[in-house]
C-alpha cells in the first residue's frame, strides 16, 4: 500500500500545515512517510510544493519520481496545473477553486478550472466559501485537507486528532473552526 501526493499552493497558504497533519496521522496509523518541503527564499509569495509519500513499506527517495504521484492536493487552481505531468495517468486532482492572484499574467480562471475538470476523478472545492462558513477564512488549507481525506490511505479520525493538536495552542474556538472546515471539505468532496 502506497500513496504519493504533491501538495501545491503559494507561499503562505498553509501547505506545511497540511503536510504536518498528514505526517503525524501517518505516524499514528503505523505507515512510513517522507515529506520534502520548501523553505527560505521560495516561500515569499512564490509557487511552493511539497512531495509527500506514504507507504506500508520502505520509502527510498524523498522526491516522487515523475509519473508516480497518485494525487495533487492544491490550495490554488493554477498551482494544481503546474504538476500535472508528475502524476500517473490515473492520478486524481483535489484543488481549491479560489485563485491567488499575485502575478500580472494570471490565466483565465474558467480555462484553468476547465483544465482541472478534464482530469478524470478531479475534485474542485470552493475553499474560500467553506472556510468562511466554518468560521475562519484562514482555514482554507484545512478545508482542502478534509476534501482530500476521502481519498487518503489514512484514518479520518487520525487526521482530525492531529488537526486538534495543531490548533490547540490557539484556543478552543480555533480548533472548532478548523474541525468544521475539515468536515465541510470532506462533505464537499463526497458530493462532487
Amino acid at each position, binding site marked *: 500500500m502506497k500513496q504519493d501526493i504533491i501538495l501545491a499552493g*503559494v*507561499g503562505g497558504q498553509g501547505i506545511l500545515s497540511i*503536510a504536518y497533519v498528514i*505526517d*503525524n496521522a501517518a*505516524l499514528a496509523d503505523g505507515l*512510513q*512517510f*517522507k*515529506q*520534502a*518541503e*520548501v*523553505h*527560505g*527564499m*521560495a*516561500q*515569499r*509569495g*512564490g*509557487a511552493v510544493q511539497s512531495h509527500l509519500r506514504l507507504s506500508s513499506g520502505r*520509502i*527510498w*527517495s*524523498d*522526491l*516522487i*519520481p*515523475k*509519473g*508516480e504521484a497518485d494525487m495533487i492536493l492544491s490550495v490554488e487552481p*493554477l*498551482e494544481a*496545473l*503546474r504538476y*500535472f*505531468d*508528475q*502524476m*500517473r*495517468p490515473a*492520478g486524481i486532482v483535489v484543488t481549491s477553486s479560489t485563485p491567488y492572484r*499575485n*502575478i500580472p*499574467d*494570471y*490565466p483565465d480562471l474558467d*480555462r*484553468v478550472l476547465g*483544465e482541472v475538470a478534464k*482530469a478524470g476523478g478531479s475534485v474542485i472545492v470552493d475553499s474560500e466559501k467553506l472556510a468562511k462558513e466554518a468560521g475562519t477564512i484562514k482555514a482554507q488549507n484545512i478545508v482542502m485537507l478534509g476534501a482530500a481525506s476521502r481519498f487518503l490511505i489514512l484514518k479520518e479520525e487520525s487526521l482530525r486528532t492531529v488537526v486538534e493538536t495543531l490548533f490547540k495552542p490557539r484556543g478552543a474556538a480555533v480548533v472548532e473552526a478548523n474541525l468544521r472546515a475539515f468536515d465541510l471539505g470532506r462533505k464537499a468532496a463526497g458530493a462532487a
Partner: protein
Amino acid sequence: MVRQVLLGDEALALGAVHAGLSAAYSYPGTPASEIMEFLIRLAKKEGGFKATWSVNEKVAYEEALGASFAGKRAMVSFKHVGLNVAADPFMNSAMTGANGGLVVVSADDPGMHSSQNEQDSRFYAQFARVLCLEPADHQECYDLARRAFDLSEATGLPVLIRLVTRLSHSRSSVETGEPRPQNPLRTGDWKDWTLLPVNARRRFRLLIDRQAELLRLAEALPANALILNDKDRSLGVIASGIAANYFREAAAKEESAPSFLKVSSFPLPEKLVRALVGHVETVLVLEDGYPLIEKELQGFFGVPGKRVVGRTSGAVPASGELNPDIVRTALGLAPLPSRAPSGVPLAGRPPQLCVGCPHADTFKALNEARAAYPGTSVFSDIGCYTLGALPPYNAIQSCVCMGASVGMARGASDVGVRPAVAVIGDSTFAHSGMTPLLGAADANADMTLIILDNATVAMTGGQPTYGSGERLLRIVEALGVPKEHLRTIEPLPKNHGKNVQVMKEEFEYRGLSVIVAVRECVQEQRKRRS
C-alpha cells in the same frame, strides 16, 4: 525507543544533543537554519546546553572551538557558503585539533534553491584533511551526528557532516536512543592550541600521520554499504549520501539491480571502492554536488579497462540537484508513464517581497532618487531585499556574498563611480558590513550606504539580529560616520517625497554617508500581534 517526526536538520540536531552536546552555535542560512531553531526550542524546554545564534559563521565556529578547547562537545552549523566565512578557523582547527568532540555541519544547496552557488562542502573536508560524513536519510542524520562526536573524540579532530537541502528540509520519522551525559571541563594543551610555527609544523605532521587512521575509520563506518550482483557484472553504481536513495528508488522496481556501493564517509572508503570497481565493467557515479568521487576515480589517466561515468562524462547533468528522474535516465531506464502536461500556459510565480514590505518603499524612493544619475549601479547584499533585483523594482545590480555591497561600493567609488550606493540589511551589516564601513569611514570614501533596518533576519524566518534600532545607529556613528551624514528615514508610502529628498542630498554629498531605513518586517509584526 521513541519515534519522532523530524526534519533532516532536526534529526541531526537531536542526535547531537543525545551525544552529550554542551554548546551549539550558528548563523541563519537556508537550508541549515532549522538545526539551530530546533536546538533553541529544545534548550528552552529542557535546558542543559547552550544554543546560540552568533553574529556570523566565523564567530560561531570560534565559539564552538572554544567550547571544544574546554573539553566539552560542541557543534557549529551553517549553510555551505557559511563555511567560506568560517574557513579560517575551520582550516586551523584541523591543526589545533579538537579536545571535546567538535562537529561542523555544512548544509549544501545543490540546485541553488536559496543560494548564490552550489559549492560542495566535501571538498572542504578534503582540504582540511578531516573526516566527512554524509547521511542519506533522517535516521542517518540522527545516528551519524552521534557517531561524528565519537569519531571527533577518537581522532582528536573536528568532523564535518555534509547535508543537502533535500534532506535538511525533508520530514520523516526517526527512532531515537538514550541521551548520554556531557563531558566534564578539561582544557586543552597550550602547545597544541598555539599555532606558532614551531607548534604548527609539529601539528601538521601529526595531521598527516593520522590520515591512515582516518581512512580506516571511514572504511569501518556501518552506513557505507556494498551490494554485489554476481550474475550481471556490466554496471556498478557508487552513490554518495542522498543520491543512494534515488538509485534504490529506481532499482527497487527492477528485477535485477546493478552492483551498488553507498558511500557515507570521506576519505573515500578505498577497500569498498576497489571491491566495486573490480567487480564491474562500467562504474556510474551518482553524487549530489560536484564530481568528487568521479574525479578521484578517474585521475588523469582513468581506470585501466573500466569506464567511469557521471557528471563529468555527461551521463548525469554537470550542474543542478539530482532527482529520481535524472538517476533513472542515467541508469538507462525508460521514464515512467505520466499524464500529459496541462494545456494552459503556466504563468510563473517567482518569490516576491510581501505586500506592505518596507524594502519595497525604500526601493521606490531609491529608484526615483537615482533617476538623475543614469548608468549608476546599486551594490546590494544577501537577504529578502535581494528580490529588489527583480521586476517591478529593478533597484539593485549586485548580490555576491554577505557584506560585499559595502566594500564594492567603496571600490567603485575609488575608481570614479558617482554616486556609489550600497544597500544592506541590518543583520547582514552586523555579520560582515561593519568592517568594510570602518575602512570607508577612515578614508571618508565618497559613497552612500543604505541600511535596511527591519529588526530581524527575515529571509530565513525571523531570527534575532544584533545591530538594529538605536544600537545600530550607535555602531555606525562609532565606526566614524559623521553625525550630520547619518540619516534615518521611515520607508512608508506617505514619506516617499521626503525619503527621495534625503537620498538625493546624500548622493550629492562628496564623502561618506549612511541612510538607515527603519521599519519592522511585516511578517514579524504579524507574528508579534498574533
